[in-house]
C-alpha cells in the first residue's frame, strides 16, 4: 500500500501551530489595547501644555507622570509576554503604540518632568534612546538575543512626533506670553533637524516622517521671526 498523500500528523502539527500563533496575537491585542488607553490618556493630559503657563508645568507634569507610570507598567507586561516569542514576528503589532508612548516620555522630560533631583524642572532635556529604555525598564536596540526591546526606529519616530508637538507649543507659548520658550524650542528643533540630516535614510516610513521635520522648523522659525521683528525676544536667549 502506497503511503498517503499527506501524513495526518502533519495536519495536526500545523493546526496547533497556527492556533498557538492566533492565541498569541489575541493576548498581545489585549495588552496593546490597554497600553493604547494609557497612551491616549497621557497624550490628552500632555496636550494641556499648550494652554498652561510655564509656572504651572509642575502640577501638570505630575499628572502626566502618573499616566506614564501606567504606560511603563503595561510595557512591562508586554515585554514579559512578548519576550517568549520571536521579537520581530509580532513587533509590527505594537510598534506604533510604543512609539506614541515614547513620545509622551520624551516630551514630558523635555518640559522638565521626570527630571533627576540635581536639576528639577529643567526645560530642554532630551532623553536618549538609552534613557528611554531606562524609563520603560526595557532593553534598547537588542542584537545579541531575541527579546522585547525598543528599536532605534521606534525612538526616532517617537522623537519626530515630539518635534511636531513642540512646533505647536512654540506658537502657543507666545500666546501665553512666554517668548523665551519659543526661542528655546527653535534652537532645539533646529539642532534635531541637523541631527536627522546625519542619518542615511532609505525610502521607508522613517524617511517620510523625517521629511516632515522641516515643516516644524519652518513653523518655529516663523514664530521667532515675528518676535525678532518686533523686538520681543528676551535679551537672555536660552540658546
Amino acid at each position: 500500500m502506497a503511503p498517503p498523500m499527506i501524513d495526518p500528523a502533519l495536519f495536526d502539527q500545523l493546526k496547533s501551530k497556527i492556533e498557538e500563533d492566533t492565541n498569541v496575537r489575541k493576548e498581545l491585542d489585549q495588552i496593546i489595547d490597554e497600553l493604547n488607553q494609557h497612551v491616549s490618556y497621557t497624550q490628552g493630559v500632555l496636550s494641556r501644555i499648550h494652554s498652561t503657563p510655564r509656572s504651572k508645568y509642575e502640577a501638570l507634569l505630575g499628572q502626566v507622570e502618573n499616566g506614564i507610570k501606567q504606560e511603563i507598567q503595561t510595557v512591562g507586561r508586554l515585554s514579559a509576554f512578548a519576550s517568549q516569542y520571536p521579537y520581530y514576528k509580532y513587533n509590527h503589532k505594537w510598534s506604533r503604540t510604543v512609539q506614541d508612548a515614547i513620545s509622551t516620555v520624551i516630551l514630558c522630560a523635555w518640559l522638565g518632568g521626570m527630571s533627576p533631583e540635581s536639576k528639577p524642572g529643567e526645560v530642554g532635556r532630551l532623553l536618549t534612546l538609552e534613557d528611554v529604555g531606562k524609563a520603560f525598564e526595557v532593553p534598547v536596540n537588542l542584537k545579541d538575543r531575541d527579546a522585547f526591546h525598543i528599536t532605534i526606529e521606534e525612538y526616532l519616530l517617537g522623537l519626530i512626533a515630539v518635534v511636531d508637538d513642540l512646533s505647536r507649543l512654540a506658537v502657543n507659548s507666545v500666546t501665553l506670553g512666554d517668548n523665551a520658550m519659543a526661542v528655546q524650542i527653535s534652537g532645539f528643533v533646529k539642532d534635531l533637524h541637523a541631527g536627522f540630516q546625519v542619518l542615511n535614510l532609505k525610502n521607508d516610513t522613517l524617511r517620510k516622517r523625517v521629511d516632515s521635520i522641516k515643516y516644524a522648523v519652518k513653523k518655529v522659525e516663523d514664530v521667532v521671526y515675528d518676535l525678532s521683528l518686533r523686538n520681543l525676544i528676551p535679551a537672555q536667549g536660552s540658546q
Partner: protein
Amino acid sequence: MSGSKRDWSGNAKRRDGPKPAQKQVVRNAYTPMFELLRNELDEHHDRRERIVKASRDITALSKKIIFSLQRVRKIESQLPANIQAEVDSRLAEISKLLATLAPEIQGINRYRYSRNLMCLEELVEALTFAHYLKTQTLISHAELSPIVEDLTQKGAVTRDGEVMGDASDTAGNAAEPAEAPTTEDLPTISLTEDDYLYGVFDLTGEMMRFATTSTALTGSMASGQAAGAGGDEPRTIVQDMHELGTFFEMLPVGPESRFQWYKKLEVTRQSVRKVETLGYDRIVRGSERPEGWVPDLSTGDQGQRDELE
C-alpha cells in the same frame, strides 16, 4: 566661468580672496548621538540589502528547478537523469547562497528580515514538488527542515575551499577561516511553518500544471505505479489534489496575513477545480480517443496561462 559676486555697491568681489572656512556639517550637542544611530541603521540597511540580493537569486534558481521539473511526465521514484542533473546543479548554487544568507538571519534577525526571505517559500515549492514527483506524497515540515539546514551547511563547507569573493561577510563568518569547521557549528536556516505552508500553497499550482501537461502528453492521468497484482487502483493526481485542497480548507486561517492566506486559498481552489475537470474529461471522453491520440497542445496550454504566476 560663472559670474562674479558683487558687494552692495556693485564692485566685483575678488575670487581669489581667502576662501571662507570649509563648510562644516553643523555639529551640535546631538550630533554624536545621531552618528551612533546612523551607524546602527546603516548596518541594518546593508544587511537587508545583502539578504534581498541573495533572496532574489535563490528565488530565480528555485523557479528554474520548477521549470525543469515541469518537464517530467510521470510520477516515479527516479527523476529522469537529465532533469535530476539540472536540479542538482541548481541546488548546489542555492546551497552556496543559503550559506551566505545564514549568518545574516540568526537569532533575532530571523524574523526581522522574514519579509525579505520570500525565497524560502519558493525553495519549499521546488523541493516539495520534486518530492511529490518522486514519491507522490507531501513532504512534511519536519522532514523538509533538516533538508534545508543541510543544504545551507553544505554550501558553507564547499564555499570554504574557494577563495571567498564576498569580503562584506560580517561577524557571523569570522570563525570560519579556522580549520575545516564541523557542520554542526555552522549557522543554518530554520524553516518556519509559514514558509512551509505558503510554499505548499504554491505547490498546488505546480501540481495542476503538471497534471495538465502530463495528461495531455501521455494521455493518462498521472498516478502512482500500479501497486502489485490485485492491489487497489493506484492513486491519481486528482485524488492528491483533493486531499491537498481539503487539507487547506480544514486548516485554521494563518493569522500572519489573512489577506494573503485567502488569496492563496482561492488559487488553490481553482487549481483543484482544474484538475477535477481534467479527471472528468479523461473518464468521459478518454474512451473515445483512439489509441495513441494526442490532444492539441495549444488548447491544453490555454487553461494554465493565467496560472503561470
